[in-house]
């Protein structure tokens, strides 16, 4: 009977361990359609413990983490893909023309290098983050990014809470 020498046994174990770790990565190799990417991401998010739902249009996902987030996958043929993450704070329609609010948002964009802030056409404040990756995305990078999104959103709201009060519910 053949037995593995310790060094080769170590290499073999290492390769097994390595493949089991990468098996949990999101793999969008060969996917160049955003809707297909959305479906794959939905399955992967469930596998790694998130609760997500695909939009009726099929091109975005809603993630429920206590707070709610919208995720928009964008894939390319070059293999460099992005997931754009939005945190939306509902606001009054009149916010669109509120110069003082736009001044606050400008300040956020200049001071916080974590996201893009803007007031949308409905008067909501949107904070936009993104993850860029090369076909494969590890659960660790995704989880850490979501932590970063939560911490960044919280820090911004905390700092501007008083100034935001007249514009948001």
């Amino acid at each position: 009977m053949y037995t593995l020498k310790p060094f080769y046994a170590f290499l073999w174990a290492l390769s097994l361990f390595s493949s089991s770790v990468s098996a949990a990565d999101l793999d969008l190799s060969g996917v160049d359609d955003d809707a297909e990417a959305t479906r794959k991401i939905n399955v992967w998010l469930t596998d790694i413990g998130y609760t997500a739902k695909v939009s009726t249009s099929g091109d975005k996902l809603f993630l429920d983490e206590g707070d709610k987030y919208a995720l928009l996958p964008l894939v390319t043929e070059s293999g460099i893909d992005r997931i754009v993450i939005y945190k939306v704070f509902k606001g009054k329609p009149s916010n669109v023309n509120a110069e003082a609010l736009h001044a606050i948002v400008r300040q956020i964009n200049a001071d916080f290098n974590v996201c893009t802030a803007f007031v949308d056409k409905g008067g909501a404040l949107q904070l936009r983050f993104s993850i860029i990756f090369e076909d494969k995305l590890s659960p660790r990078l995704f989880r850490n990014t979501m932590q970063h999104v939560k911490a960044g959103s919280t820090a911004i709201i905390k700092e501007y809470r008083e100034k935001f009060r007249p514009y948001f519910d």
Partner: protein
Amino acid sequence: MKKILLASLSLACLISGGLRAADLNVADVRKDEDASVLLRGWAADIGYTATISDSRKVVFLKDGLDYMLAIKVSASGIDRVIIYNIYKGKPSNASSRELMAIVREINMSKNVCAAYVDKDGDLVLRFVLSFDDRLSPKLFRNQIDHVKAASQNILDEFSSKLDPYYE
């Protein structure tokens, strides 16, 4: 036969290790300034013209356009390279309501970067690339190309509106 298989496995591991050596690795780096030094050296190794500021807080990169890069490392979370593309403007831009409306339109319609006018009146386009300790040359190069293309796209689309404010 088994020896050949085992030797092939070992060779595959060596090749894989060799390829990974070209990644930027900040796993053991705790200070942004130290990461900047690594980033400058690594960017030069993979073919960019890169210099570092005296404070070691930012790296300047040349690739057709001039970019300013800041790197932020974190022990437990994610590391980030922040890429700034800056267009010189007039100091009076900082208080122009019309320009602020244009910048808001850019932020609303383009989901690739954050645009803002700094206190000197310059238009800043800020892009963020997050990574988990290791950054591959392919992803970095692709991001720089993406920054270049996206910036050009924004300038082309908004050129008639931005022209009065920028040289």
